[in-house]
Each structure stands twice: as structure tokens, then as C-alpha cells.
């Protein structure tokens, strides 16, 4: 008596969950890529967990009737691991609209990923794009800070150089006039011989006679 019913149920299930069926989603897992040596084997227990997570996501949607694990159907499991799943309504006659399933899964994507120790790339829901976390951006871009520092240093250096240049210029213009004053004062007392004041001739430092300057010193030796 129960056998025909059983066959009917499986037939209906087979119809509801098929590759490219309406409201069906393909899932692809890359366990070995994610975990390497610590990869677990995909068996029916893992499938059970998956169905539980999908049911959990659907239950979290407000104003939706309680979804049971038995309402989530899996089919076409390959070695990859990949499979298709659908979520049926309590009557198990038709599947829930894809949009609802999609939004439910997106809301709880993180929890589903964590349950399997995978991430958005290794647990792929084809046709359900995942939302990336926003990048960490400080309020002021770092390059502006560094720029500000360098620019301030440059401005300070330029100002210092200009000021020192002005000071040197002023010193040069004052210097020769100072020497002139002392010369005027000394002129009355300096002894003059042949029109040349004696003083410079007696100084120990003496003058440099440019005639005897060798060319070597004027040019950088090659």
C-alpha cells in the first residue's frame, strides 16, 4: 500500500530537483583547494548538514512558515563536489521562488560558509552572487598624510635657504662699506711712499700674485 506512495513521492522529488529545473540552484564546493590535507570527505552526513543550513536560512526569513530539513532536496551529486538543490513548500508540490531562496542564502552566507570551513570562493552558489566586505579605508588616505609631511619639510627648507641668502646678501653689502670707513679713518695716519700706502706692504699675509698661479689649480684635474 505504501509502496506506490513511496514511488510517487520519489517521482515528484525527481521532478522538482533536476539540473536547470525552475528555482533550482547549483552548488560547487572546492574542499581540497580550501583545506588541502585537512579536507573532509563529502558524504551523506555533510549533505544533511547542508540541507540543515539551507533550512535554517529559510527559517530566518520573517513571515515564512517553518521550513523543515525534509523540504530541501538535493540531487545530482558529483565527485567534484557539486550538486543541485531546491527548497519545496510544506505541501512538497512546488518549489519556493528562486528570489526568496537567493535572498535568504545571501543573508546567512557567512554562517553557511563557517559551518563547512569554506569561504565565498570555495563554496559557490552559482547564480547567487556574494557580497564582498567593504575594504578597510581610513578616513584620510595615507598618501595625503605623507604628502603633507614632505611638503611642509620642503617649504621650511626653502624658507630657511631664502632667509639665509638674504642675510648673506645684507652682510656683503654692509661689509665693504665697513672696510671703507676704516680706510678713511686710517688714511690720515698712513705713511705714503710713491703713492702706495706702506701698511699693506708690511702685512705678513701679503698678496697673492696671480701671475704665478699655475693653470692646474684653476681647473679640476682630470
Amino acid at each position, binding site marked *: 500500500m505504501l509502496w506506490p506512495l513511496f514511488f510517487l513521492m520519489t517521482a515528484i522529488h525527481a521532478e522538482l530537483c533536476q539540473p536547470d529545473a525552475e528555482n533550482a540552484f547549483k552548488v*560547487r564546493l572546492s574542499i581540497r583547494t580550501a583545506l588541502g590535507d585537512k579536507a573532509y570527505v563529502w558524504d551523506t552526513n555533510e549533505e544533511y548538514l547542508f540541507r540543515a543550513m539551507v533550512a535554517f536560512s529559510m527559517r530566518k526569513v520573517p513571515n515564512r512558515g517553518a521550513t523543515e530539513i525534509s523540504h530541501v532536496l538535493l540531487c545530482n551529486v558529483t565527485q567534484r563536489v557539486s550538486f543541485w538543490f531546491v527548497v519545496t513548500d510544506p505541501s512538497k508540490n512546488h518549489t519556493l521562488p528562486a528570489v526568496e531562496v537567493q535572498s535568504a542564502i545571501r543573508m546567512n552566507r557567512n554562517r553557511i560558509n563557517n559551518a563547512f570551513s569554506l569561504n565565498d570562493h570555495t563554496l559557490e552558489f552559482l547564480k547567487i552572487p556574494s557580497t564582498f566586505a*567593504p575594504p578597510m579605508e581610513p578616513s584620510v588616505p595615507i598618501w595625503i598624510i605623507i604628502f603633507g609631511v614632505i611638503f611642509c619639510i620642503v617649504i621650511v627648507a626653502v624658507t630657511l635657504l631664502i632667509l639665509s641668502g638674504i642675510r648673506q646678501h645684507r652682510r656683503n653689502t654692509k661689509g665693504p662699506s665697513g672696510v671703507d670707513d676704516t680706510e678713511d679713518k686710517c688714511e690720515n695716519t698712513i705713511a705714503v711712499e710713491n703713492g702706495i700706502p706702506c701698511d699693506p706692504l708690511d702685512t705678513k699675509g701679503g698678496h697673492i700674485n696671480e701671475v704665478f698661479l699655475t693653470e692646474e689649480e684653476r*681647473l679640476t684635474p682630470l
Partner: protein
Amino acid sequence: MAQVSELGQLEDGEDERPKWDNKVQYLLSCIGFAVGLGNIWRFPYLCQTYGGGAFLIPYFIALVFEGIPLFHIELAIGQRLRRGSLGVWMAISPYLGGVGLGCFTVSFLVSLYYNTVLVWVLWFFLNSFQHPLPWSTCPLDLNRTGFVPECQGSGTVSYFWYRQTLNISADISDSGTFQWWLFLCMVACWAIVYLCVIRGIESTGKAIYFTALFPYLVLTIFLVRGLTLPGAAEGLTYLFTPKMQTLQNPRVWLDAATQIFFSLSLAFGGHIAFASYNPPSAVSALLFCLCRNILSLINEFDFPEQSIPRDDYPTVLLHLNATQPERVARLPLKACHLEDFLDKSASGPGLAFIIFTEAVLNMPGATGWAILFFGMLFTLGLSSMFGNMEGVITPLLDMGILPKGIPKEALTGLVCLMCFLSATCFTLQSGSYWLEIFDNFAASLNLIIFAFFEVVGVIYVYGMKRFCDDIEWMTGQRPGLYWRMTWYVVSPLLLLSIFLAYIILLAHKAPSYKAWNPQYEQFPLKQEKLYPGWVQVICVLLSFLPSLWVPGVALAQLLCRQRQKWKDAQLESGLKLQNGRHC
């Protein structure tokens, strides 16, 4: 550089000429001025445009027969006559005064765009102070479901360069807006240049020890690192196998000849650096391409994970293509060839930036390396930039444009301000295209013409014997046969033939450029476009206007002489009449 004659004589207008502290400083300064962005930025992208090894042949020929003889002439004549670049030519012959003025104009044009490259370097330097580096990831699109499509197509580094740095437009006539971040960096760059140029050679003499030697240290480290990565051998063999048909293009010879002016004999460092970066990034791109194809196959046919090793990929693909061709045809499988990645990874002025930033990404401690590298590049460019500015400022001082009361600092400030205002056009969205134009046209032809006149002027007008006597007096040795042969015959002939070939080429084929257009079907390949008419006119003007100083000044001198003779003749006849009256 053509303005290297300044090295022989220094501050002008003062009684006591400053000189270098010692021979080492002088040599290092020569190296520092000669080594610059020309080696690390310009040489690699020229090399790649003309297919690697083939470019080295005309480069060496130009170096031996043009570069070194010319360099020697400039240093010797500069040291002998001890005048500024204007004074030297007036001393040799008043009719050649135009060469000095022309060099001054070219220096001005070159400094505009050379500093813009420094602006880019500064931008990268400022952005290197973060972890992870900003060019390692793509930004997310608006609804945060994926990456920006342009970035996905082109790769993170290219996207950072073309979009986030330049914000480049798809066409040169589409100027776009000023990019405020580049504008800020430009202000900082010109301020730094002004800071260095205020005091002149006294301060740079000390800094040159660092700025000339440090780059070689860093480049050696990069070279060693690059050579130890897998795929280095293939990349190097690819780069050093010359493609002989490129030698028939006169543009190669012209670029080789002018590259001499930008980097004298030290481009080897840049070339090897380039060779060491390109292979690893190309090989990793190849591996990435293969992996992507394999993943597509695995996903489509639901094979178990990691079931197709990279080496088996071709056989598996063949087998699948035979059994289920329709499903394979639907997949977006790309052909993965190493040559494609070596050829099309990047080109143009952005080459150095894209290649080096990619190389830095793959190193451990990427942030530190990036800071080091871009800091080095900045100091390199700055030391060369200093030579450029001296080529602009010294002639202005010689000509005595400003009255005596105004200090030198004001003049240099004014010059830097004018250059800065003129260079702001490079911060537009089409700025990179304009920079390429300036790089290709402003310097090349003019420098060839001036070099020709330099050789002819010194050897034929000043006199070969007199020049050789001067060199013997300065160094104690008479120049040998190689020098005399190249000065007399080979250099002028080589320069003249390159010049003529280039004119013919320009008339024959309209110049074109490669534009970055995200809407292009073959994106990320660049789209080849012709320059519009008004841009071609600007190219021609840039190529020839600075050279017009030479005939212009010669003509002016001739007219002056004629007028003088006519005046003298009139005076004489007037005096005769007077004398006659008093007979």
C-alpha cells in the same frame, strides 16, 4: 645630455668660479647627470617597442660613433672655454650662437615633461606607505558583488596605473579635467626642484655620492632577485634574441641616437633590470592563464578538484575537444602563450611603472621594497632634473635678462614657476598622451640637429688642430685616431643620415599612438589611433621650432654685420667729404 657643457664651467658672473672638491665628485656628478630616468624609464620602453635585443645594436653603434665622441667634445670645449652654453658658441663663432639658444629651448621643453615623470614617481612613492599596496587589489563595484569590470579585464596593476593614477581618457582630443592628486604632487615636485636649484652645484656635489651610487645598489638587488625566479632564462633569451626586421625602421636608429642623449652608456643597468622583471611577471601571468583554463574545464565537466595537472592540460583539452566539442566551444578558454605576455604586458611611458610595481608585489616585504625603489627612482630623476634646470637657468643668467638688483633666487623661482604652470597640462586626463608626444618629438630631432652643429662647429669652425692642442694642454695627451676619425667624418655623417631618414619617414607615414580604451573590443590591448590634424601640427612645431634658432641667429648676425659695414662705409665717405671741404 646636450647641456653637459655646463659641467665644465659652473657659476657664472662671479669672480671666483666654484669648483668640484675632488675628481671623484666630478666623475660621480657626470654619472649622476647621465644616469637618470632615461635609463630606468625610457630605455626599457624603447627597448620593448622595438623588440628587445634588436634595439641594442643601433644603440651600441650610436654610442660608439656618436655618443662618446660627442660627450668628449662637450666636456673638453666646456672645460677649455669656461663659458656658459651660450658663451661657448659665441666664442667659437658668432654665427653658431643659435645652437646655444636652441639647446636652451630644448632643455626647457624636456624639463617640463621630465618632471612630470617625477610627479608619477612621487605619487607611487607616497602610495607605497601602506600594507597591502593599493595596486594589489581591485576596487569593488557599486553593489559590492564583484570587482570593477575594467579592473577585471586589465589586471590590478594596469588598472591602478591607467585609472587611479592617470584617469586616462580614451582619446587625445578628449582632454578631460585636471587630476587634483597629480596637481598636488606636481606642486611638491617643483618645490623640491626649486629647493635643489637655489643653491646650485655646491649642495648637489655632496648629495651626488648618494644619488649616483644608491640606484646601482638597488638595481643589483632587484637583478639578483629577478634572476633567481623561475622563468628568468626564457624571458632573457626572448629579450636578447633580436628581431632583425626592426633595424630597417629609421625610427629605431633615431630613438637609439637620441637615447644616447638621455642615458650615456649606462643604460645597461636599466636594460638588465627590465629583463629581470619582465620574465617572472610574464611567467606568472602564463601560469595564471593556464590555471584559469583548467578550472573552467573542471567546473564545466565536473571533474574532481585538482585532477588536471598543468602539464596534462593540452592533452586533456585535445581529448575533450574530440569527444564533446560543443561544450568546450562554449567555454571562455584563452590561448596562453609566453610571447603574448612578454609582448603585450605593457608599453609606452607606463611600462616602467607597471612592470616594476608588479615585480614589487611579488616580493616578500612588498611595502619596504616599493618605498626603496620609488625613492631611488625619485633621487635618480631629481639629479638629472637638476642638469636640465641648469641648462635653462644658466643661459638666462648669461643673457642678463633680469636687472642686477634682483637676486639669483628670484630668477630661479620665476623659472620654476613658469615651468610649473606650463607643465600643468600634463595633469589632464590626456596628459600621458601629450607626454608621449613631447618625449618623441621635442627632444629627438632637435638634439640630432644640435649635435650635428656641435661637432661641425667645434671641428670645422673652431678647428681640429686648435681643439687637439687644447686637449693636449689640458690632459697631456693628444687625441688618437679613433677620436679624430669619428669627429671628422663618422659622427657628422651618422647624424646627417639619421636626420634625413627620419624626415623621409615622417613624411611617409602619419604618426600614431596607442590609446587605453575600455570600450575597445580587444581590451586590454591598447587601441591604435592616428593623431588628429592639429596634434600633428604641434608635433611638427615641437620638432623644428627650437632648431630655427640656428638659422635665425646666423641670419641676425649676418644682417648686423652688413649694417655695421654699411654704417662704417657711410662714416668713411662722410669723413672724406669733410676732409675734402677743408682742403
